[in-house]
């Protein structure tokens, strides 16, 4: 049974069909990548999964439960966490505070008990802090624990955002361009983290990424979108050689395509 099933998804903004009948299955424990040119509808798919958008047609099932139409906060509770293309963190708060906030789902005591920090609220905070420290250790960000996020360089903020998503203890992690704007070293680190999260913590990962080198290296399976339609799907090597994929880009003289062909050979 796949962890996530997207069935015949349709989404339109007025006359623009952003997603036109896309179906994707994400197996448990896999790293699944969605690629495609700008405007292909990748982020829209993410927004449908996290229920920010309500699709006009089709359905999405998570662990065989229909999630389309749910409220976004319920999605988080089910075990789906995401990062954003543009970092979504509280810039004036420290890394630690951002991560603790990421655990708010697990805080059951009210604001009052939490505020005066006694009894069960205290135990609860310690427990959550432990979980957060585990993530801090995992991602190697001990040295910036107490720094305000706004003072950090971009590559580190991306890492903090990943940490924030992990704080939710997700079963499925949606990563929207985790490597965008990073230098080579940062990309390699991030790829390592994604693999480790997947292998050590058993988290299923669905990611959107433009860096094809990374996608081909770490993904188990790749889906290609173009103009809201899935034009190909399969193992990375298979996709790179798919005539549909190649045809979709021919004439565009696109680096994207050339790289794709290069990878296939």
């Amino acid at each position, binding site marked *: 049974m796949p962890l996530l099933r997207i069935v015949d998804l349709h989404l339109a903004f007025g006359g623009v069909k952003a997603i036109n009948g896309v179906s994707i299955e994400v197996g448990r424990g896999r790293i699944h990548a969605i690629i495609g040119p700008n405007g292909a509808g990748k982020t829209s798919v993410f927004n449908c999964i996290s229920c920010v958008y309500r699709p006009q047609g089709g359905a999405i099932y998570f662990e065989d439960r229909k999630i389309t139409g749910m409220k976004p906060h319920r999605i988080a509770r089910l075990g789906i966490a995401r990062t954003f293309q543009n970092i979504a963190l509280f810039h004036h708060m420290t890394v630690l505070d951002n991560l603790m906030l990421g655990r708010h789902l697990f805080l059951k005591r009210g604001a009052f008990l939490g505020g005066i920090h006694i009894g069960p609220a205290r135990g609860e905070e310690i427990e959550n802090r432990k979980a957060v420290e585990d993530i801090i250790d*995992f991602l190697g960000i*001990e*040295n910036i624990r107490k720094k305000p996020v706004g003072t950090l360089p971009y590559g580190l903020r991306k890492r903090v955002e990943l940490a924030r998503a992990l704080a939710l203890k997700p079963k499925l992690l949606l990563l929207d361009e985790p490597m965008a704007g990073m230098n080579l070293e940062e990309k390699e680190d991030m790829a390592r983290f994604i693999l480790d999260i997947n292998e050590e913590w058993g988290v299923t990962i669905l990611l959107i990424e433009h860096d094809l080198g990374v996608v081909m290296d770490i993904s188990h399976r790749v889906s290609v979108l173009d103009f809201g339609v899935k034009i190909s799907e399969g193992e990375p090597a298979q996709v790179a050689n798919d005539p549909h994929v190649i045809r979709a880009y021919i004439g565009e003289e696109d680096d994207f395509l050339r790289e794709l062909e290069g990878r296939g050979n």
Partner: protein
Amino acid sequence: MKEVFARYDTFPKLLLRNAERFGDRKVAMREKEFGIWQSFTWKEYHEHVKRFSLGLSSLGLARGDKVAIIGDNRPEWVWAEVAAQAAGAVPLGLYQDSTLKEVAYVIDHSDSTFVVAEDQEQVDKILDIRDQLPKVRYIVYTDPRGMRGYDDPQLIDFKEVEELGREVERREPGRYEQQVGASGSEDLALICYTSGTTGFPKGAILSFRNLLTMAVNLMEVDPKRETDEFVSFLPLAWIGEQMMCLSSALLTGFTVNFPEKPETVQENIREIGPNIMFSPPRIWENMTSNVQVKVMDASWLKRKMYEWALPVGYEYADTLFRKEKPDSLLQWKHRLAYYLVFRALKDRLGLLRIRTASTGGAALGPDVFKFFTAMGVNLKQIYGQTEISGISCIHREGDINFDSVGKPIPETEITISEAGEILSRSPSVFLGYYKNAEETENTLAGGWLHSGDAGYFTEDGHLVVIDRVKDVMHLTDGTGFSPQFIENKLKFSPYIKECVCLGNARDFLASMICIDYPNVGKWAEGRRISYTTYTDLAGKPQVLELLAKEVEKVNATLPESTRIRRIVLLYKELDADDDELTRTRKVRRSFVGERYRHVIEGMYAGATSIPVDAVIKYQDGKTSQIRTTLAVHDL
């Protein structure tokens, strides 16, 4: 301490004694993990060592085998070392940022059969070069993260080895204690590979007697206490850190603290508030330049207070250096300065509780020395080398002379050869270099340890180290000068990270300077000078002017004939990964001279600008190209 050494003459014996003496009542080590200082008592320390040692034996580690250890400072590093010694094997440390070539050389040259590696990163390093390491039988890793996917019969988890050891103990109780009892002070304790400013590293063989007599003798004149706290953040492969974390800690029973990460050292020092400290000059220099930069950013009032307090501190320090008693006015002024400024400053740097601190490994600029003395930090210069188990000279309490490295410690004889070289003799002098009889003979010729350093004794018996014998340079007119001495003066500027003075067999002195990227960057931002990279920033004419002014300040303190006449700012920082610095960050002059030959030739040929087309190598082996033009500035 002497009595202790007489009865417990090896590390494992001392550990056993401490475990019996302190049990679970005293903390031996702390390690910050998950944001909390986790402690290990002496009993736990001993238990881990015992299990790991028996575990290694059960995997086939025999007496005389070698165990290589690589990784950041962690309790496991120390446990592995003592465990290997307890099993009759000889441990050796590797610098965690060594290149593959160096790692392969040392492991193979030392005939190591076991490697203890910290984490996946270090394990990958070893696996990458495994075909060059036919003697290695097991690779033990201490941090299992990321290791799940590795399926290799040579790899084994630290905890698994401890588990094997626990089995052995159940079968043969008392075996460990018996092994420890059989060890003696003449046994080999450690092979310490010296960074070596030239060629491949050499492995100095040290016995327990060497290491422990050194620590005992040092403590006679610079005592450490059972209640002391120490923060261990310099490479454990370095003899200085060995002396503190192992010999001294085991002898006295003080607590060793390991920081969370290399990046959090400063913060962690402040949390612990150590009583004793031993660091090479660069650490003190960094602190000084940090303070200077932070002061520039401070509010008007704070800046004024600092500007008032510092000269008071300097005056106080100078009086102390002259071995005079400050008059009561100066005492009051200094007390006021202390409570207004220095106390807070010391607290920020984590030095508030320092009782005794020392610096060694290279010369520390007099200005830095004065700065810490002014603040009230009891900083002493030490001198020594790996071959004498670390330290042979230290300043005595109240007898500080920042030009000197103090007087020899007890049981240590020092003399100056006719050629001006410093020679020493003591029970701590090493046994020889591993598998290098020729070098051993040269270094120990005539029964003296030849240091290769040029030096002299002052009238009051202080040793002054000028430079390496081979590094004292001469201009064409015969004027002698020590480039290192001038470089140290230059590096006191917050804007200068590293520099190389030239002038051997030339008409005048010139210098290649590496700017301090964060500090110059901050300066540039304050003046709205935009820049992109290090290379770009170093190429700005305003920056060159700024640095020229800094050099002029230093020139004013130098004799006319040895002033720097021309400077260029290099397009990259000197880096140990490019072999330009040693792992302890000393400049490798001949290598740098070769690599930047056309820059140097350009400066002496009178060029005003020098084109550069260079390839930069990163730690992971990748390279990138740099094309730029260096401007030469005349002074």
